[in-house]
C-alpha cells in the first residue's frame, strides 16, 4: 500500500500542476477526471454504490474557512455486527497531491463506525468516503469543498521538538461496558506537507503515516494517513470496551519515529492516561 500511495503522489503531482482552478459551481462528482483515475487504481471495475446515505455519510460545514484545517465527520450508518460491518473506510480528496487522505480499518467491535478528523485541501475538490463492507460491497458519499492552498500553508504552529508525538485523549469519563465509547485522540505533530517545501531540498517531509489503536491487544481502529491531514492530527472514533483494560495507540511517521500512548479504561475508575 505504501507503494500505491507513492504512485498516487507521483501521478497527481502532474495533475496538480496542470489543473486550472476555476470550479466555482459544484461540478458533477461523477465527471471528475482525477476521480476516474483514482477509482480505477483503487477499485478497478468494482461497483461503487452511489451516495445512498444509508451506509456512509460525509458531514462538513457548508463553508470551509481554513483550507489547512477543514473538519470532516464521516459516519457509518449501519450497526457493526459480526456478519455485516464496515471493514474499511477510504477517505479521498480528489485533487490533493496524495488523494488518499486516509484508509481506516474497523472491526465489529468498533461498535459504530465514525471518523472525525481535519483535512487539508490544496484545490477545490470533492472529499469522498468509500465504505467497504465485510462482503466486499462498496458505498460512497461525497461532498464538494471550496477551499484551496491548504497543503501549501505553512506548518507554522511550530511544534517544539520536546512535544513532538505527544498524545492526548479526550473522552467521557463515564465508562459503561459493552456500549460504544467516543474517543478523541490528539497527536502533537507538524504533519509536514510535501508542498510547503522547506528551503532545504533534501528535507524529507515528516508526516504521520500510520495510526494503530488496540484494546488489550485486539484491534480497534487503524489508519494509513499522510499530509492530507492537518497538522496536530485529530481522530474521533468509537470503540466498545467489554471489560477493564488498556487502550493503546501507536503512531508512526515518515521519519520512522514511533510514538505510543495508553489509557486505562474501567467502569469503576473511569479513564486514566498512562
Amino acid at each position, binding site marked *: 500500500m505504501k507503494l500505491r500511495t507513492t504512485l498516487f503522489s507521483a501521478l497527481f503531482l502532474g495533475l496538480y500542476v496542470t489543473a486550472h*482552478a476555476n470550479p466555482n459551481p459544484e461540478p458533477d462528482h461523477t465527471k471528475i477526471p482525477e476521480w476516474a483515475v483514482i477509482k480505477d487504481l483503487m477499485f478497478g471495475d468494482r461497483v461503487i454504490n452511489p451516495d445512498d446515505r444509508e451506509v456512509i455519510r460525509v458531514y462538513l460545514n457548508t463553508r470551509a474557512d481554513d483550507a489547512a*484545517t477543514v*473538519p470532516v465527520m464521516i459516519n457509518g450508518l449501519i450497526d457493526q455486527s459480526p456478519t455485516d460491518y464496515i471493514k474499511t473506510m477510504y477517505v479521498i480528496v480528489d485533487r490533493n497531491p496524495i488523494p488518499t487522505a486516509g484508509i481506516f480499518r474497523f472491526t465489529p467491535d468498533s461498535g459504530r463506525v465514525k471518523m472525525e478528523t481535519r483535512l487539508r485541501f490544496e484545490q477545490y475538490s470533492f472529499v469522498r468516503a468509500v465504505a467497504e463492507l465485510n462482503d466486499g460491497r462498496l458505498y460512497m458519499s461525497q461532498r464538494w469543498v471550496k477551499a484551496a492552498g491548504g497543503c501549501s500553508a505553512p506548518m507554522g504552529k511550530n511544534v517544539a521538538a520536546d512535544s513532538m508525538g505527544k498524545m492526548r485523549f479526550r473522552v467521557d469519563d463515564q465508562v459503561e461496558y459493552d456500549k460504544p465509547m467516543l474517543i478523541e485522540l490528539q497527536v502533537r505533530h507538524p504533519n509536514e506537507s510535501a508542498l510547503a517545501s522547506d528551503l532545504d531540498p533534501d528535507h524529507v517531509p515528516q508526516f504521520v503515516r500510520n495510526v494503530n489503536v488496540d484494546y488489550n491487544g485486539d484491534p480497534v481502529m487503524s489508519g494509513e494517513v499522510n499530509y492530507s491531514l492537518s497538522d496536530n492530527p485529530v481522530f474521533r472514533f468509537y470503540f466498545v470496551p467489554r471489560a477493564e483494560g488498556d487502550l493503546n495507540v501507536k503512531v508512526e511517521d515518515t521519519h520512522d519515529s514511533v510514538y505510543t500512548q495508553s489509557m486505562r479504561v474501567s467502569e469503576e475508575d473511569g479513564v486514566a492516561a498512562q
Partner: protein
Amino acid sequence: MLLDWKMKITQMPVYLQVNNTRSEDSASAELQIGTALPFPGGRSCDDYLFYKFASMLALVLALFPFVLPVKQVLAQSVAFAIEEIAPGNYVHYGSYADRSPQNFGDNANVGFIVGDTCVLVFDSGGSFAVGQALRNAIRSVTDKPVCYVVISHVHPDHFFGTAAFLAEEPEIIGHENLPLQLAARGRHYEMTLARDLGDASEGSRIVLPTKTLAAGTTMTVALGGRDVEIRAWAPAHTDNDLSVIDLSTSTLWLGDLLFVDHTPILDSNITGFLAVMKELRELHIRHYIPGHGRSDLPWPQVMDPQQRYFELILTETRQAIRDNVRLMDAVNQIGYSQAQNWVNFETYHRRNVTTAYTELEWE
C-alpha cells in the same frame, strides 16, 4: 468614524491607469500614473470639500461595490492617494473590497518615511502595480533613494509590490521566519494572485528579504535627520510580524498587528497576539497606522475593539473545548456577538476561531 477629515491631504490623488494598448517597453509601461480624476471638472488641491466628497465616494465605493454606475467609471483606474499623517510619514490607505483586476490588490495600508538622505518603505502593496504606484507617489514627494523596504509579514496584500523597488537596490527587511513562510506559501500566493487579478498581476513576484530580524529584537536605521526602529515580534498575527516606529515623530507603523473596522485576522497565535498587544499598549505613540482601516481614536484606545474581539474568542473557545464542542460546531457558535462590529466578518471570523481552537486545544 472611518475617515479623519482633520488630516492633511498633501497630495493630489494620483490615479493608476491601465492602458489598453500594449507598448514594447517593460510590463510597467502598461501602467501609467495620471492625474485624471474620474469626476467631471478639474479641482484644485486646496478644495477641501472636493476631497471630502471624493474620499467619501471612494469609501462608499469600497464598501458598496454594487453602486454600479460610478464603479464602471472607475473600472479602468484606481485612486492612489497618499496622506502625510505625521511629518515625513506618508500613508496610502488600502481598500476593503476583495482584490480584483480593478483594484490591483490594493488592500493593505502601505506607506513610507522620508529622511534627509533615505526613504523607508513600509509594505509594498498587493501587486507590482501597487508597488509601482507607491514608488511614483514617493517620487512626487522626494527624490531621495529608497534605502529600505520593510515587509511587515507574509500576507500577499503587503508584499507583492516589492519588485517595483528593486531598481533602487534597497535593503529588504523581514522577520527571521519570513523566508520560510514565503517558501511554503509563495507558489500558492502567486497562483491565486494571477487568478484574481489576471493581467493586473503582471510583474508581481516573491522577493526574499536581504536582511532578517530575530523575534524579540530591534534594529535602528538612520534615514538622515531621523532614526527608525524596526521590531520583530513573537508569533501574533503571523509568526513573522514586524513593526516600525519613526522615533522623531513617535509614529508607529503596525502592519496587521492592528486592524481598524476590518475584521482582525489571526494567522498564528491568539495568546501571542494578545501578549503583543499588551506590549504595544505601553508604547508612547502619537501617530499610528493600522494594517487595515483608519481611525482618529487616541493611542492606545484604538486597540480596544480588536482586543475585545480576541478576548471574546479566547474565552468562548476555551469554554467550547471544555464543553467538548467539536471544531466543526465551534466555528458556528463562537464570537458571533461581535459580527456587527466588523467589516468582512463572514470571510475571516470562522478562520480565526479555527486558528484559536487548534492552538487552545493543546493548553
